């Protein structure tokens, strides 16, 4: 197997990246964050461009470069920015760049679900908690930083551990180049069209292959006779069976094939996910409720007020 990247370029890139990340992490005194970020960017560029050199297809496409550099750069900013709010905002940028890569991998539904769920819901919750759980700065020191934000713990050791892991992972990756297969993921999933007769009908109508009064012939099992493999459907037209071809535009969409896969093949997992969400909700309620201590006098006063209210209610009725 031939390597798609010269291992020396890869390792030089990884070492450079490690030094860069290490310098970019926040420190107590003057921290060389800018230089670190620059080095890390250089390393990332080196590795990612190196990835293309031996690739028989030439360099990977420009969108991939754009999104991956954006994603990794803002991920670095998430861990190196001293202010939690900015870190959360940079995380949103990482999400957007990942969604871009999902689009390149023809996972359209997941790309938008990612933006809605992550950037829209989870990150907003994070921002809420960041706002809740920080003391407001006083008027004199609006730029106050907490000590635990300003300084990271053992940056050198952690970086070494992380990048040794990255080197191990990527050495295994580059023992061979597996190109992504041609075609789209959903073309292979066109089989789901057999279960979508109304969509086939609408598409045939648009292509004028469906006349008023037509209906699908039924096969032995009583299902509409749609054959996605040969891209034909059998219709009953004025008592006779006619076979019509699918128009070119009739393709299964990402969300349709994904939905069939989701509901047909993983029903048990959906149940487990539901239980997990319920447990998380209960856990969050239990954890974050505040226990209020009433003393006896307050309790007695409230009981009296309640009794009073009930009596008045009874009198009115």
């Amino acid at each position, binding site marked *: 197997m031939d390597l*798609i990247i010269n291992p020396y370029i890869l390792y030089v890139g990884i070492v450079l990246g490690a030094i860069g990340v290490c310098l970019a*992490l926040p420190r107590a005194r003057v921290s060389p964050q800018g230089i670190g970020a620059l080095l890390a960017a250089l390393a990332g560029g080196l*590795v*990612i461009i190196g*990835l293309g050199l031996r690739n028989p*297809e*030439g*360099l*990977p*496409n*420009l969108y*991939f470069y754009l999104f991956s550099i954006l*994603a*990794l750069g803002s991920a670095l900013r*998430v*861990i190196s920015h001293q202010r*939690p709010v900015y870190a*959360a905002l940079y*995380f949103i940028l990482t999400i957007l760049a990942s969604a871009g*890569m999902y*689009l*390149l*991998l*023809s*996972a*359209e539904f*997941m790309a938008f*679900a*990612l933006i809605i*769920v*992550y950037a829209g819901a*989870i990150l907003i919750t*994070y921002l809420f*908690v960041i706002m809740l*759980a920080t*003391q407001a700065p006083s008027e004199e020191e609006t730029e106050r930083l*907490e000590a*635990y934000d300003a300084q*990271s713990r*053992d*940056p050198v050791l*952690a970086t070494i551990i*992380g*990048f040794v892991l*990255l080197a191990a*992972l990527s050495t295994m*990756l580059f023992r061979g*180049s*597996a*190109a*992504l*297969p041609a075609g789209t993921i959903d073309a292979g*999933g066109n089989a789901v069209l057999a279960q979508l007769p109304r969509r086939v009908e609408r598409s045939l109508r648009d292509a004028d292959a469906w006349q008023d009064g037509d209906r699908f012939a039924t096969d032995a099992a009583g299902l509409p006779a749609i054959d996605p493999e040969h891209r034909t459907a059998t219709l009953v037209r004025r008592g006779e069976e006619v076979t019509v071809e699918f128009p070119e535009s009739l393709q299964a969409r990402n969300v349709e094939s994904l939905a069939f*896969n*989701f509901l047909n093949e993983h029903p048990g997992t959906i149940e487990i996910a539901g239980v*997990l*969400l319920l447990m*998380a909700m209960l856990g969050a309620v239990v954890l*974050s409720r*505040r226990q209020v201590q009433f003393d006896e006098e307050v309790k007695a006063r409230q009981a009296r007020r309640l009794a009073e209210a009930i009596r008045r209610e009874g009198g009115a009725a």
Partner: protein
Amino acid sequence: MMPLNLSALSESHLIDAVLPLAQTGFPEPMGAPALAHYLFVSAAMFVIGLIGFLTRRNLIIMFLCTELMFQAAGLALIAFSRFHLEHSGQTFVIFVLTVAAAEAALALALVVLLFRKRESLSSEEWGEMRG
């Protein structure tokens, strides 16, 4: 140089709608990214999240770094799903999102609780819980 590989770019219908530049064209340097490219980006993102989790001392940022690692795992799943032309990878990213949401809810409740007790988000405030 390879000719502009439009079929790889326009393999998703949405790319055509969202990024019309794909049709009018950038200059040459485009081929199809292989599986390994996406896996490398995913591994690098995971490692950045790991380093962040180990070094940062702010509880909220530590949990943000776990989200970064979830994100990296999701990217690898999507890349494999594209590689095998099989939807299960994408389906599992839905479950990854579910787990991430559950984790965020629990972790943030925990953070709020801990902040109420010690008025600080530092993870070292709780150093006595070390075994």
